[in-house]
């Protein structure tokens, strides 16, 4: 790591960048335009998001707010917990703990900085953490290992049984930084009495842990309010997802990213609701006019991403899709497994989905355990890919429901889990009639394969398969 990188706290820098970005359009258009040339590596993100209008503005606002929460946690007397994207933050907010979500912060850095998270990725290797580990956590964790981030009080993850390399990042950080650790462990089966009970017991142990760490009892009223907000958010997401089924899809390509990012940042909080409501408004307007959300206005192809996105600098994945008239039909990160989600009702999967029951403290905790066990990846990557309710069934169901023309896999080389089965998975999706493209890139590290190479290969695939 360069000396100058150590000069300022990285999370404080990130907060600065996003706060400044969120202010850009609050002046005149001329001021805005003249500012852009000073942020050559960030302007792509700023332009794409702010051009999305009010939802984009609100989205940048909450990114800034999130980072502000992280860096001011201590002065506000709050505890901080390093956590993961597939862990619903609702419980942290209910217990006055500020979640520090590694993957989301890695995405923010990868989007905005010229070097992305490269220095922190490499720093991990220098202190003994393997370079083959997933870059999604490694990017941010490196900064915390180097001690150039906010003070961390505890480390909490829910990926054991789902993703080793993810779980291992948290276990390593806990041992390296000597911080308390808690894991929610996931059994291989999603449903059934044994799994349900295990999820519930485990979640109760988590609450006990959090109570010990904060020295405060869980306040049922606060939790109830959060879960009610969450239910409201699920309603909005369900409607957005339903709208995405229309041809043309009225949702701009960046909406999917904003849906999942808002949930990972502020699930159960009004900040998230604000962004979602604003997106819904635009989507409804577009739908009423029957216009496509793509900036070119013409929908040529619909792609379903069966895993995660590619977070190359300046939102280049989304730009590529938009320019080529490829409609983004979602990925596993954005799909919610609330009882009212379109794919749940379409396929009668209510028994697999979660419902929010705010009756009493027990039902609240059980609801949370259910929500958490159905988070992206946690739900569908835990068992064999071809088992009921797992990756293949979910992907084929969603790809059909959203009328996808092709399926795209992108991950990171650290993802032992999906790389262990993706060849078989793609054989099956191809057999089911979906051209399936496997990207060999790293979603968080352009040094593995440059975005230009990734883009070229993707377009090549479309050509070879006569999709364009």
């Amino acid at each position, binding site marked *: 790591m360069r000396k100058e990188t150590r000069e300022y706290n990285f999370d404080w820098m990130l907060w600065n960048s996003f706060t400044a970005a969120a202010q850009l359009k609050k002046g005149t258009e001329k001021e805005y335009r003249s500012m852009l040339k000073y942020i050559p590596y960030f302007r792509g993100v700023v332009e794409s998001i702010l051009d999305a209008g009010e939802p984009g503005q609100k989205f940048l606002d909450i990114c800034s707010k999130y980072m502000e929460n992280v860096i001011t946690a201590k002065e506000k007397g709050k505890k901080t917990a390093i956590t993961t994207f597939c862990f619903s933050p609702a419980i942290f907010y209910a217990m006055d703990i500020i979640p520090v979500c590694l993957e989301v912060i890695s995405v923010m850095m990868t989007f905005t900085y010229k070097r992305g998270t490269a220095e922190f990725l490499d720093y991990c290797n220098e*202190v*003994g*953490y*393997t370079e*083959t*580990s997933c870059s999604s956590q490694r990017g941010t964790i490196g900064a915390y290992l180097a001690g150039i981030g906010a003070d961390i009080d505890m480390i909490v*993850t829910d990926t*054991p*049984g789902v*993703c*080793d*390399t993810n*779980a*291992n990042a*948290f*276990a*390593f950080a*806990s*041992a*390296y930084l000597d911080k308390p*650790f*808690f*894991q929610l*462990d996931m*059994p*291989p*089966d999603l449903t059934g009495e*044994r799994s349900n*009970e*295990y999820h519930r*017991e*485990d979640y109760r*142990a988590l609450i006990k842990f959090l109570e010990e760490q904060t020295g405060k009892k869980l306040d049922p009223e606060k939790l109830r309010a959060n879960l009610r907000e969450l239910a409201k958010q699920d309603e909005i997401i369900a409607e957005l997802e339903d709208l995405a089924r229309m041809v043309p899809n009225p949702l701009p390509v960046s909406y999917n990213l904003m849906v999942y990012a808002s949930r990972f940042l502020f699930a159960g909080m009004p900040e998230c609701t604000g962004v979602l409501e604003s997106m819904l408004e635009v989507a409804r307007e577009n739908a009423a006019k029957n216009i496509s959300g793509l900036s070119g206005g013409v929908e040529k192809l619909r792609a379903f991403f069966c895993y995660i996105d590619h977070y190359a600098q300046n939102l280049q994945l989304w730009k590529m899709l938009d320019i080529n008239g490829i409609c983004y039909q979602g990925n596993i990160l954005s799909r919610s497994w609330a009882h009212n989600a379109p794919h749940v009702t379409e396929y009668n999967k209510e028994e697999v989905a979660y419902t929010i029951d705010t009756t009493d403290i027990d039902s609240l905790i059980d609801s949370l355990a259910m929500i958490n066990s159905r988070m992206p990846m946690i739900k569908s990557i835990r068992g*064999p*890919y*071809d088992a009921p309710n797992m990756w293949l069934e979910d992907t084929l169901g969603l790809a059909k429901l959203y009328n996808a023309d092709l399926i795209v896999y992108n991950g990171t*080389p*650290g*993802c*032992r*889990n*999906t*790389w*262990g*089965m*993706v*060849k*078989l998975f793609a*054989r099956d999706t191809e057999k089911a009639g979906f051209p399936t493209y496997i990207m*060999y890139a790293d979603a968080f590290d352009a040094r593995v394969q440059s975005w230009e190479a990734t883009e070229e290969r993707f377009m090549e695939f479309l050509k070879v398969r006569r999709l364009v």
Partner: protein
Amino acid sequence: MIKELLDASTVLNNKHVIQWKKNGKKVVGYTCSYVPDEVFHAAGILPFRIRGFGAADTTIGDTYFGPFVCSLPKCMLQLAGEGKFNFLDGVIITPGCDSMRRLDECWRKAGSDVDGVIPSFFFHYGVPHKYSDYTIKWLTEETHRLIAAVEEHFKVKITDENLHRSIKLYNQSRMLLDRFEAMRTLDAPPFNGEDALAVILAGTTMPREEYNSLLEKFLSEAENSPVIKNRVRLMLVGSANDDAGLVRVMEGEKAVVVADNLCFGSRFYTDQVEESGDPVSALSKRYLGHNDCPRMYGDYKRRLDILVQKVEKAKIDGVILQNIRFCDLHGSENGLFERDLEAMGIPCMRLEREYGPLVETGRMKMRVDAFIERIHQKKAIA
């Protein structure tokens, strides 16, 4: 005696297995040290630890697994695809780690592509990642599920009485291995690390009764064997290793491996199973609680303590921390071990390798030699 154990450790379908099958009995393979042998023994089935030993390449493994995956399960699948595991009547897969648990899908897919590659009994045994009352309960239920499946498929009955008997037999074995461990860590041990690994491995490939008697003979012979002196004493830590050749390369002429924490090593035999009470719950407690793999997240300090105790007990001069490429669990934990053990003044060397044919021995040897030189220097200064 060592010859017979060595043969059993290097030939998968060895004479014990062949004899067993000739008698019309069944063999079930498993991939991970969290699977309780006793369950199969109680059913009159031979539990057999699946390995990738002897795979010359991974062309079949690579057909199903993607890149960026550990070479151990790829080698296992390779051998399965080549028909080397045709003697197995069943297979148990666990979520030991991500690479290993995807062997489930890859093997099944290979089985659907090529007849005879997969045995008819194929079972996924879900092992939790932490130790607490409800995780033991889960594993106990999971073991009952396994027992029921074995009973149904193989038309056998696994009674508590049989389980108790099997637990006793395996405990005897563990007691013998404790004696073996004590001998191995002597100031002047009567056998080297290469032989030690062969002795341990042999136990995973033959009926336990035969193994116990061979082991007993080996120990009494060892008591009168010439001893090994004046060598640098190493401990081998990290990813699975079932290749005695790797230990031979490391030992060379100047060193001897006198301790390990490997899953094909001491992890496999430490600690007894409770002999009274409910046998299934006793098995679950031992297998989940006394198996020190980094897959049990958040338990690093305990594992470090175990290493430190071993270093003291076995008078270790240096620790080799190795991992198979893409094994993040061991690789990262090795990074922590290095930091903490070095801080205590214990020389460590990290090494990343591939599982499979020993091809990089030159590079490995160069580094181990340099490490031994470093230890000599340290001793000379002291």
